[in-house]
């Protein structure tokens, strides 16, 4: 394990894995690190374990704070690290 991977692992242990919650047309991600890409059809959120990608239509950032990010719109697909 390299130093970078070790650092990532420590950071992930301290911050915890991202928590993704979907309710109807709303998706909430907790423990995120920022927005990498924001468009109406795709939003990429930087998370401790990697990048969570939300694909859909008419996506908007309903709320953005250090604690969580809330996305609203028609969500077609959510891709998260280690998932599909």
């Amino acid at each position, binding site marked *: 394990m390299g130093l970078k991977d070790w650092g990532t692992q420590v950071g992930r242990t301290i911050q915890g894995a991202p928590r993704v919650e979907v309710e109807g047309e709303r998706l909430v991600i907790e423990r995120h690190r*920022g927005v990498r890409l*924001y468009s*109406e059809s795709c939003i990429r959120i930087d998370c401790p374990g990697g990048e969570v990608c939300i694909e859909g239509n008419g996506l*908007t*950032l309903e709320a*953005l*704070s*250090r604690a969580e990010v809330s996305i609203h719109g028609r969500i077609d697909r959510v891709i998260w690290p280690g998932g599909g």
Partner: protein
Amino acid sequence: MLGRLIAWSAGEVRIQVCGASTERFLNLCMRGEIALWDVVRQDGRTLTATLSIQDFYALRRLMGRSGCQVRVIQRRGGPFWLKKLRVRWVLSAGFVGVIGLLVVLSQFLWVLEVDAAPGIPVGHLREVLRQNGVYEGAWLRSIDTDDVRRAIQSEIPEVGVIALTYIGNALRVQVDAAQMKPLSIDRTAPTGLVATREGVISQVTATGGQPLVKPGDAVEVGQLLISSAIPNTTEWGTPHRGHGMGRIMAYTRHTVELLCPLSWTEYQKSDKTHNRYALILGDRRIKLYLGSGIPAGSCDKIIEKTRLSIGSRLLLPLTLECQTWRETDAVQVTGDAQTVGEQAAKQWLSDLQKQIDGVILESNWQIEEIEGAVRVSITAACEEQIGAEMIDRTPLPEPSQPS
């Protein structure tokens, strides 16, 4: 919803962010503990977002690093609204005045609803309520519901359960009738059973007292069927009084003569309706139509009252009354003697079955037409309970002497 209201009260700013990397701007805000909401992408270089006033001031120190231009497109919320109102002082005073008036008026009773059970004198009840300070326009804090309840109970003996319920500035008084105890003869009193109808006894079931009749006996109205005087049953016993009770079934006969008309008027509803409106303000009724409220021809009058209110709790002393007059056509109906007579006979037998404690064994009727009417003579043979309890003062038999 509550969160949005609080945010609006504290004041919020809608901004437009324009630059090559708007994502960088979003991340800077996030790291700077600036909360954004309603972030909408306008095009590849522009987005709009909302933030609080405090965060907007905090945002200014981050602007140099984001590489984006920020423009305020809307200011909204409590502080901005108050700033506008400071200039329009008449409007402000009016607003405060209306709020104050609402607060003052909500301290008074505007609507008094009385819901009394049948048999309760509503006029007397309203008078008692008025004497105890419960009337439209009374100060709500001066009403002591316990005192009012006690006053109603002492003034109106027919009253049972009383419920006084406040709904905003309305008071609903619900009064139930007292449960009257059924009249009953003391179980220890010397009672007997007497016949309420004449007939022939079919069955005697005595659960107390001394039966004086047996199946097959003919009895008359008022005849003692079970006596309270019980003779001695043992050689050395003495006669004593008991509580005579039981069921005495007898074959009885009911006869009646009915006279029914052969033609009558029936009112049939038509499709013609008229609506009339009126406003009821306290005790006053303001007509919103011309003419009289009494219908000229024959018609059904349906009155629907709608209480005007602000929300569900603030009732206004204003009621909108809608009268719907539906015209009816008077139609002369004529029946034939046989049908009218049979219907009358069947109705009478149905009523008789409800009245008696027994069954109708057989019935027959004769129909006779006389000058536009029909005479129906009905006879019904029944088996029914004819015993009724009453105080028995029959003297006790002499005690038997030992031989």
